[in-house]
């Protein structure tokens, strides 16, 4: 009994790893989504730096908000590609036909998206620091935790809706329209924490409450997405 359970756990970990590896490898070969997302993030950061005076105190106050607006928009470019990648050659049929639970496919894709979106965020963060004259690394680890938590929420919700909109002709437009309203609590929390962290304040007091909100958001939306995908497969 114990052995069967272990084999079952190994099997779903293996399935997630296979899909994760496949998506990451395919993206790193073409770099289509990565290049588009990174270029977009850098251009928006540059344009914002013209609009706001980097030395002004007010700019530092809204730095967290600016950063997450850029990350949210740049992230959807990667999320959009997640299932679009399966359309040429009807690759989605190959995945649907395989005897793996749909939720392992979903988690594998979410993880790959998480790594790609996080990579774009980490590359653009130092550039943000230069453009806006902020010393973002003072609370580096705490900032990394907030980036990871918010990015997981964004990728879980984004991957779910990327699957739902993949067959729509206007999917590039539909994805942001669908995910941003759902992302409001997580983005709000991320903006509230990121600003003070960039200003060098430690992660304590009220800021921890926002971090708890991010953890709760991630748990709720990961569970909901996994349940929805499993139900859809059975149906």
């Amino acid at each position, binding site marked *: 009994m114990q052995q069967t359970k272990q084999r079952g756990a190994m099997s779903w970990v293996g*399935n997630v790893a296979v899909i994760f590896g496949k998506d990451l490898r*395919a993206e790193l070969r073409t770099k289509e989504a990565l290049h588009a997302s990174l270029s977009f993030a850098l251009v928006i950061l540059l344009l914002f730096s013209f609009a706001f005076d980097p030395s002004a105190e007010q700019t530092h106050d809204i730095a967290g908000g600016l950063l997450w607006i850029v990350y949210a928009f740049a992230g959807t470019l990667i999320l959009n590609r997640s299932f679009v990648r399966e359309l040429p050659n*009807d690759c989605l049929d190959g995945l649907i036909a395989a005897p793996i639970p749909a939720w392992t496919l979903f988690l594998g894709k979410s993880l790959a998206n998480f790594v790609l979106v996080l990579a774009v965020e980490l590359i653009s963060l130092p550039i943000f620091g230069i453009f806006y004259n902020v010393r973002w690394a003072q609370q580096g680890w705490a900032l990394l935790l907030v980036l990871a938590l918010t990015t997981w929420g964004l990728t879980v919700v984004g991957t779910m809706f990327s699957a739902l909109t993949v067959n729509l002709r206007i999917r590039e437009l539909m994805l942001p329209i669908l995910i941003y309203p759902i992302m409001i609590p997580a983005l709000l929390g991320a903006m509230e924490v990121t600003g003070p962290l960039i200003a060098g304040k430690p992660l304590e007091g009220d800021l921890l409450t926002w971090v708890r909100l991010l953890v709760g958001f991630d748990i709720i939306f990961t569970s909901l997405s996994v349940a929805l995908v499993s139900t859809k497969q059975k149906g």
Partner: protein
Amino acid sequence: MSDVAVDCSGVWKFYGDFPALRDISLKVPPGRCLALIGRNGAGKTTLLRILAGFSKATRGRVSIFGNQPRETDARRRIGFLGHGISIYDELSALENLTLFARMYGLAEPKKAALEWLELTGLTRVRDGLVREFSRGMRQRLAVARAFLHNPSVLLLDEPFTALDDRAIGVLQALLQAALREGRTIVMSTHQLREALELATDVALVERGGVAYQGPRTPEMLADPGWLYARYGES
């Protein structure tokens, strides 16, 4: 275990108001090869996609060895080759087959992938990216992907498309071997001669319905157009 490999009874499929399939009932016992023959738009692909579990019948029942096509047991048994080859252009031939071998839980994925690359004559280009392959090479790789996990039911939609004479010979040999091993094949094709040489049974699909269903006869083999002339609409 059910003694019918592929069972489809009273299947209807509507796209809006248009009936793509009309009350189709077919039973294919294990070890038989059913050739689905019909003009373009007759409903062969729709039927195969329903059998493979990609699409749902509007009405009627479909089972693969007693299981619904979407159940894990049925998916393990099915090898599907459709119009889209379900192969990733950004991966190499070996990476593609290893990926599918892993998803089907094969014990030695890479070994299985290498064996099928050998069988389909693609060993030489195993590390080449699929986007650089010719259409025939892609089709051969798709055949390897469909056979890779030793499925007991092969659902093949136009499997001979884009293959040259030699590759058609290789595929026919693979299908004959599959039949000898007791696997079940349902295939749609316009290459009547190749299909009829292999088929044990034939179904003529016309306008979403079955116009003829029965064993392949010597007349069909002698004249592939005979079935259309005898049972088809003029």
